[in-house]
């Protein structure tokens, strides 16, 4: 886990590019640490006019996994789903972002054969994980459609793709790719696989159930509504076998074995 510099800092936008259905934001973060851990996240807001969109929001910063950290630059991949992501998606070059981070606990150092399983925008933290683990790392990605699946091009090698509408890759859910992969190379053969996954709650729930069924270790990067990102508000809790934990300081990556069925977040 990499510590964050204390407080928020300004990071100029270097690039804001559309990648299919998503938006890629690259910011300069010379004062931040060079080695955030995959699965850690940053709280982002714009320096100017953060807020007063539809319904007078956003007001609080928003949480984003970094998708890549290179030469003092941070990559974020985001999906425009509400006032905060909408404003961020529109940030122009020359504008600054307020950033705090890296925050939270990312993926554990991999033991065994890593299997990266992403759904939609959940691909973001898997990109830097693949950067770390090497281009040969197996990546399975599920998307709604071809437009969303363009994000797969950011990955090295040949990620396996499933889409909801069959427009690219297999016409299936990504958990089906995972099931096939586990069937093909069962945990009993060779190096034991460890699943690293991020995606929407139903997908993570399916990954959790599948991993538990097959006796495979799985680390899941969860989401929940966050106000602060550094443990201050106690707002981001998810239920675990040990009770509620704050996802921002005890996660966002949790061991699937610690989760209660159905508890992967709202």
């Amino acid at each position, binding site marked *: 886990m990499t*510590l*964050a*510099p*204390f*407080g*928020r800092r300004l990071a100029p936008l270097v690039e804001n590019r559309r990648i299919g259905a998503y938006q890629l934001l690259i910011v300069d973060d010379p004062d931040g640490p060079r080695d955030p851990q995959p699965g850690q996240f940053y709280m982002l*807001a714009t320096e100017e006019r953060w*807020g007063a969109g539809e*319904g*007078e*929001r*956003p*007001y*609080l*910063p928003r949480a984003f996994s970094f998708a890549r950290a290179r030469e003092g630059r941070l990559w974020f991949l985001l999906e425009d789903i509400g006032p905060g992501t909408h404003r961020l998606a529109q940030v122009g070059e020359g504008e600054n972002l*307020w950033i*705090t981070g890296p*925050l*939270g606990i990312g993926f554990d150092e991999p033991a065994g054969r890593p299997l990266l399983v992403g759904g939609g925008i959940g691909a973001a933290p898997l990109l830097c994980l693949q950067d770390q683990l090497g281009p040969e790392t197996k990546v399975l990605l599920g998307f709604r459609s071809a437009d969303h699946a363009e994000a797969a091009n950011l990955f090295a090698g040949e990620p396996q793709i499933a889409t909801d509408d069959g427009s690219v890759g297999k016409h299936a859910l990504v958990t089906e790719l995972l099931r096939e992969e586990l069937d093909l190379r069962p945990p009993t053969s060779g190096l034991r696989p460890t699943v690293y996954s991020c995606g929407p709650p139903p997908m993570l729930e399916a990954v959790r159930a599948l991993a538990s069924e097959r006796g495979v270790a799985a680390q899941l990067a969860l989401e*929940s*509504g*966050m*106000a*602060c*990102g*550094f*443990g*201050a*508000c*106690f*707002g*981001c*809790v*998810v*239920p675990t076998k040990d*009770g*509620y934990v*704050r996802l921002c*300081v005890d996660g966002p990556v949790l061991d699937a074995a610690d989760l209660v069925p159905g508890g992967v977040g*709202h």
Partner: protein
Amino acid sequence: MVDLCGVQLRGPVLNGSGTYDAIAARRAFGDELLERFPFDCFVSKTITLAPRQGNPPPRLWETPAGLINSIGLPNKGLAGFLAEDLPKLAELPVPLCVSVMGFDHDELNELVATVGACDEVALMELNFSCPNVETGLIMGADPAETAAAVEALRPLTQKPLIVKLTPNATEPAAVARAAEAAGADGVSLINTLKGMALDPKTHEPWLGGTTGGVSGPAVRAIALEQVHSVSKAVQLPVIGMGGIASGRDAADFLTAGATCVAVGTESFRDPAAGARIGAELRALSRKEREFSSGAVR
């Protein structure tokens, strides 16, 4: 230096109880947190006698220029706090104020007597005003109930007792006066205003706790009015809070009669907000006449 109930603080900026977990923040930011500690006195999250899980999620809802929370006072309970948290909080470079809430008088007595006996603790805050658990609100809105509670607690410790008032009351100044007469050493306000939001999809209440408390700039004008009217009503030092986001805001609360201010929700936007607000306030103080005189009376 600011004198808060006899405790000397290096400045007037506190955190609002429950809006900063210095232990978690140290995990995130390391010892830089201590070197650049943003508050002049640290107020703990409210603790209760028994451990609490808090309310079911979702616990947060963003509002125009504000936040509703329905946290529900999750905490390790008195024993857990003393064993695990207090030693770590004692490492902070500023005096410690511990916030407590009891579900009945016995609980409160035990909390105040026990916490009051700890050398690490400089002050105590009595949270009579949490909108997210059943008991707090009712007691804190009623002058007589507040007075009875403070009277019973006063002999149990030498430490200053600060009563945190609810804004969900017809006349917070009357409650403050009752607290003063009963022996309180200070009052703090405002806690959050009761609020609610519906899930835009299901139209059911969004928050796991159904209702929550509103904080942030949205409530600042309401808070300033209450701080002003309470400051006029009592001689006690007042800790003013509610939507403070800048040195200008903090200066307004001091001008309205507060001795200290507390920063809550703004810390969520910037973990170092307390330090920025303190610095802005010092810059203003140099330009303007002394704020702490409570000019608007």
